[in-house]
C-alpha cells in the first residue's frame, strides 16, 4: 500500500517521542511532504541584498518548485514560478542575474514584466480565433501570492490560506533580529555564492542535527580534537590564538558545556541552541567592532545585542541561521535520500572586515564539502539513512529528557542535550502534514 492512497496514515508514523523510519526513507512520504508540509509552511527564499537593483533576479527552488525572486520596476520583490506560461521553458537558469524590464522566453520569445504579467506574444493574431483568454498561458507567469519580506529576509508560502507569517514564526524571529542588529547600521549583505554540499540522506536528519548538542564531542573529536592538539603543541612558541582555532576548537566542548548552553523551543517547530552562551561566545575583538556597536546603539543596547550568543536557530522546516557568526544554511530536499545543503554568509554592513573574514572562514571550515567537521557529520547521517533499512527495529528514538507535556507554552526552555527541539519539529510536521486528511492530495 502507498501512503499516497491514504495520506492521513502518515500521521501515525510520528508519536510524541519517536518517528517511524518511513518518514526518512519512503519516497511516497517524501512526496506528501512536498505536496503538503512544504506548501503549508513559510519557506525561506533568499535575501533582498541578492537583488539590489530593478530587474535583478535570483533563481532557486521552494521544495521541488523552480521559482525566482525578482526586484520589479517599482522596487517591490516578487516570487514567480520559473516557467514560461506557454510551454514550460524555464525563463532563467543563472543563479543571479539582471533581466532588465522584462523576461523573454528563449523558445518562442514570449515576454513578461518583472511582476510576471504577460507583455507580448509574437504574431499575436495567431491566437485570435482560439479561446486564449481562458487559458493558463494568458495569465502570464504565476506568482507566489504569499510572500513576506521580513527585514530583507524573503519567505514564501505556496499554499493559499492557512497560517499567517507572524503567527507561524512568532518570537523566533528574534534570532534573525539579533543577526541583523549586529551590524552597526542594522543591515546585512549576502557575500558571494553559497557552498553547495550534497548529502545522501533525508533532509530531516540535517535539520535535527542543528540542535543536536549530544553529538559534537563524539563526532567532532576527530577534527576539532586534532586541531586543539596541534595548536596546543604550537602554542608553546607563544603565538596568539588563530581565528581558525577559535572557530573549530569549541566543537570539542564537554557534555556539561552543551548541557548548560540550553535549548529554547517555540511553536510551529522553531527552536535554538545556546540560550545562555554558546560555542560562539568567546570570539576575540581586535578590530574595534565592539566600540563601534556602542557608538551606534549606546552601551546598554550594544551589550544586549552582543551578549546574545545563540548557536543554531532552526526555522522549521528547512532553514538554520547562526546570528553570532552570520551564516545561514538552507536544507533543500531533493528526494527521500537526497538533500542539497546551501551555506550562505553575510557581511555586517559597516562592521570591520575582520568579522567577515571570520564568517567566511567559519563557513569553509565547518560547512564546506571539504570540511573536516562536515565529513564526519555526513558520515553519520548517511550511515543512518542506510541503517534505517533494518526491519527488526523501525523507529527513530527521540526520548532524551522527555517528561511529557511539551509544546504547550509559546516558548519553552530545556537543558542543552535534550531532544526536545526534534520532538518540537515533529509536532509541527504533524500539524502541517495534517492537511493531508482534509484535502484531496495534489492541489490545482
Amino acid at each position: 500500500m502507498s501512503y499516497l492512497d491514504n495520506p492521513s496514515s502518515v500521521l501515525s508514523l510520528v508519536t510524541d517521542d519517536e518517528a517511524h523510519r518511513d518518514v526518512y526513507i519512503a519516497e511516497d512520504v517524501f512526496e506528501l511532504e512536498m505536496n503538503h508540509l512544504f506548501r503549508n509552511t513559510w519557506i525561506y527564499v533568499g535575501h533582498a541584498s541578492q537583488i539590489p537593483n530593478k530587474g535583478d533576479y535570483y533563481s532557486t527552488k521552494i521544495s521541488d518548485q523552480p521559482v525566482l525572486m525578482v526586484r520589479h520596476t517599482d522596487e517591490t520583490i516578487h516570487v514567480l514560478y520559473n516557467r514560461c506560461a506557454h510551454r514550460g521553458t524555464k525563463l532563467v537558469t543563472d543563479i543571479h542575474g539582471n533581466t532588465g524590464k522584462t523576461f523573454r522566453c528563449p523558445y518562442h520569445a514570449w515576454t513578461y514584466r518583472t511582476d510576471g504579467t504577460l507583455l507580448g506574444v509574437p504574431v499575436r493574431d495567431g491566437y485570435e480565433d482560439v479561446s486564449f483568454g481562458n487559458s493558463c498561458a494568458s495569465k502570464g507567469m504565476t506568482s507566489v501570492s504569499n510572500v513576506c519580506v521580513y527585514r530583507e529576509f524573503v519567505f514564501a508560502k505556496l499554499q493559499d490560506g492557512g497560517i499567517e507569517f507572524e503567527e507561524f514564526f512568532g518570537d523566533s524571529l528574534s534570532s534573525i533580529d539579533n543577526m541583523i542588529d549586529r551590524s552597526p547600521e542594522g543591515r546585512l549583505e549576502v557575500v558571494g555564492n553559497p557552498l553547495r554540499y550534497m548529502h545522501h540522506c533525508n533532509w530531516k536528519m540535517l535539520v535535527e542535527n542543528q540542535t543536536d548538542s549530544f553529538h559534537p564531542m563524539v563526532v567532532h573529536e576527530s577534527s576539532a580534537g586534532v586541531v586543539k592538539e596541534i595548536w596546543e603543541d604550537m602554542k608553546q612558541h607563544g603565538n596568539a590564538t588563530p581565528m581558525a582555532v577559535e572557530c573549530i576548537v569549541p566543537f570539542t566542548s564537554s557534555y556539561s558545556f552543551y548541557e548548560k548552553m540550553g535549548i529554547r523551543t517555540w511553536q510551529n517547530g522553531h527552536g535554538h541552541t545556546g540560550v545562555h552562551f554558546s560555542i560562539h561566545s568567546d570570539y576575540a575583538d581586535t578590530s574595534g567592532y565592539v566600540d563601534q556597536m556602542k557608538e551606534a546603539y549606546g552601551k546598554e543596547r550594544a551589550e544586549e545585542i552582543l551578549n546574545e550568543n545563540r548557536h543554531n536557530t532552526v526555522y522549521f522546516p528547512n532553514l538554520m541561521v547562526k546570528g553570532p557568526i552570520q551564516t545561514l544554511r538552507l536544507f533543500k530536499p531533493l528526494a527521500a535520500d537526497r538533500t542539497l545543503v546551501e551555506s550562505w554568509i553575510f557581511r555586517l554592513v559597516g562592521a570591520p572586515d575582520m568579522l567577515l573574514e571570520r564568517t567566511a572562514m567559519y563557513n569553509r571550515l565547518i560547512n564546506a564539502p571539504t570540511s573536516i567537521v562536515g565529513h564526519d557529520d555526513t558520515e553519520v547521517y548517511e550511515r543512518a539513512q542506510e541503517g534505517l533499512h533494518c526491519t527488526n527495529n523501525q523507529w527513530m528514538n527521540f526520548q532524551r529528557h522527555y517528561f511529557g507535556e511539551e509544546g504547550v507554552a509559546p516558548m519553552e526552555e530545556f537543558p542543552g542535550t535534550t531532544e526536545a527541539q526534534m520532538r518540537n519539529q515533529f509536532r509541527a510536521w504533524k500539524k502541517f502534514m495534517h492537511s493531508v486528511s482534509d484535502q484531496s492530495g495534489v492541489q490545482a
Partner: protein
Amino acid sequence: MNLTEIDLVDFVIREARMLDEQQYEEWLELFTEDGFYWMPLEFGQTEEKLTTSLMYEDLLLLKSRVQRLSGKRTYSQLPKSRCQHLLQTPTVDKIDAPNNDYRVFTPFHYVESRNDEKELYAGWMKHSLIVEDERLKIKLKRVDLVNCDSPHRNIQLFI
C-alpha cells in the same frame, strides 16, 4: 641553485605521486612555514579571505587534516579513501631566480573513492614555489575545479 623547467615539472609530478601514495608527512614538508593551500569556490575568484572558498588553509589546518585522516575515531575514514591524480604535462609559467619566484600551471583529473563511491574532479592547479634551504617549497598551491560552484560530495583527501 640553478633550476630548470624540468626541475619544476618534476616537482609537481612528484608532489601528486606523494598524495596518491598518501605520504602526507613528506607532503607537508613541501610547504613553507607560511604556505597556503587554496581551493576557490567561484570561477576566477581573486579574494581569499573575505568571501567563501572551499579551502584556504595554512600549515596548522593542513597538519590537522593529515592527522585526522589516521584518527581511530575518524569515522568518515573507516574505511579509508583513496585518490589518484592524472596530470597533463605541467607548463612552467615563470622562472625568476633573482626574485625567488617560480610558477607552474597543471591541468588535472582527480579521482577520489571510498566504499563504492568514486568521484571525478577536473581542473587546473597553480603552484607558486620558492627556493628555501636549497629545496623547492610551496608558497601557494591553488586548485581551481572546473565545476567549483556545483554541489559536491565529500572531498576528504588533497587534490
